[in-house]
């Protein structure tokens, strides 16, 4: 029993220590004299890597989720004779919840794991050490551009997800199930509020982008530099990032919509 307590305490301390060093890494990467000339090309390259290359999976998932929402919404709402509200339902659930959350989960799996593996491999092959010896801080050169790219990309990807999802919902609702087009769109326009829905959704996306990328780069930077260490770190990235996104989503939703 005492042993169990001691182990629990030990693990707790280790987690706390990891959290502390993750915070230090974050600070040291981001708080620096801005050097736009060297930074900008690196950030753009990373935006291509984590953002542009995630586009396909985001677009395809958005389309299908929108279509499923349209279909499910219709089968429920048609019983009450209010199938014109499908547009409103699809748009609200996407913009408020599904777009930021699903995008963040996909992003963690697609880009987060890749970031962890890439940085971990750089560590294992002494590339980070040799950067240090050349006199370049790997936190600024390797970690910071990836963090920025993550912050920037996730809100953009979430927006694209919403748009494609709404298109998917319309495709099913209007083209297939024959909801009257005018009321589908006007219902949607009347119910979606800019600051209440769109802005809050974007805030969620920014927060998730921050958290997922932070976890991914930290796991890579902190991993044990062996093949098992890297695979372990990659798994941790996906697990921790997904759990954090879901938990944070609840917190943010409570803060944003809790007083309704």
């Amino acid at each position: 029993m005492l042993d169990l307590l001691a182990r629990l305490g030990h693990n707790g301390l280790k987690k706390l220590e990891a959290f502390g060093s993750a915070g230090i890494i974050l600070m040291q990467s981001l708080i620096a004299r801005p050097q736009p000339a060297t930074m900008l090309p690196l950030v753009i390259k990373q935006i291509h890597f984590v953002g542009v290359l995630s586009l396909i999976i985001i677009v395809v998932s958005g389309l299908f989720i929108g279509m499923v929402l349209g279909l499910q919404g219709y089968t429920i709402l048609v019983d009450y004779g209010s199938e014109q509200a499908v547009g409103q339902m699809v748009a609200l659930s996407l913009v408020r919840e599904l777009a930021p959350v699903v995008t963040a989960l996909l992003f963690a799996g697609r880009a987060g794991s890749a970031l962890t593996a890439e940085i971990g491999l750089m560590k294992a092959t002494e590339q980070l050490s040799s950067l240090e010896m050349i006199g370049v801080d790997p936190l600024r050169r390797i970690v910071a551009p990836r963090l920025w790219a993550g912050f920037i990309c996730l809100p953009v990807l979430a927006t694209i997800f919403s748009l494609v999802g709404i298109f998917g919902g319309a495709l099913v609702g209007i083209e297939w199930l024959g909801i009257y087009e005018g009321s589908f769109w006007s219902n949607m326009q009347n119910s979606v509020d800019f600051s209440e829905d769109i802005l809050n959704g974007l805030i969620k996306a920014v927060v998730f982008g921050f958290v997922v990328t932070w976890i991914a780069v930290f796991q890579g930077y902190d991993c044990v530099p062996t093949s098992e260490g890297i695979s372990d770190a990659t798994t941790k990235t996906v697990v921790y990032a997904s759990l954090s996104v879901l938990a944070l989503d609840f917190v943010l939703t409570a803060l944003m919509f809790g007083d309704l």
Partner: protein
Amino acid sequence: MDSFDDVIIDIKQLSFSRGERAIYDNVDIQVPRGKITAIMGPSGTGKTTLLRLIGGQLMPENGSILVDGKDIPRLNRRELFKMRSRMGMLFQSGALFTDISVYENVAFPMRVHTDLSEEMIRDVVLMKLHAVGLRGARDLMPSELSGGMARRVALARAIALDPEIVMYDEPFAGQDPIAMGVLVNLIRRLNRALGHTSIIVSHDIQETLAIADYIYLISDAEVVARGTPEEINNATSMKVRQFIQGLPDGPVPFHFPAGDYQSELLQDS
């Protein structure tokens, strides 16, 4: 113990351990300026560790590491990075940046530390690559190189800025006899012509005895012998003789510290 007129790296009472195991225990090492100093010793004694300590990537538990009068462990981040720009290091694994070409790898330190024009960078890169015989490989990616080639590119990168101190971690490993001869000459030429201070970690005894001005033999957390190549060659100590002649039996352990072999085999698990 010899003393040098002009010491560039002065390590005093250095202690460093990994877990329970002492890698260095109260060791003094001086590296003379403008000379080639070799660090030799059995695998796993801590030669790479020593280079990392000098480069400030590891912190000693005790002692000072003075490089040109500055104590490395006590420098702040900015001073340390500045000091490192005066050092070049060839890593044991090469450690080329895998996302950029051979050319860009060699150009990298110049892009970071100098404002040279693109033409000048190009000239220097081609010169350095030519010196290691790989000018024709400049457009390849690191993944397309053989192990020996990658190490030579890494060497070209380590000397790209003509640093005052160059640390070579096993430069000759994996080289064919011709490349080996070229590298020996290159290191000697860099040292004689430009006055670089070179530190070489190597297991190739003949090559090392041939080019080094001074040799440290490290084993069991301490310096077991030091001296010029002649002194090392003529040393009478059993430990030194065993190492130079490559004999498996003798005072230098071939095995990583372990329990008794016989009893471990007989033991039930």
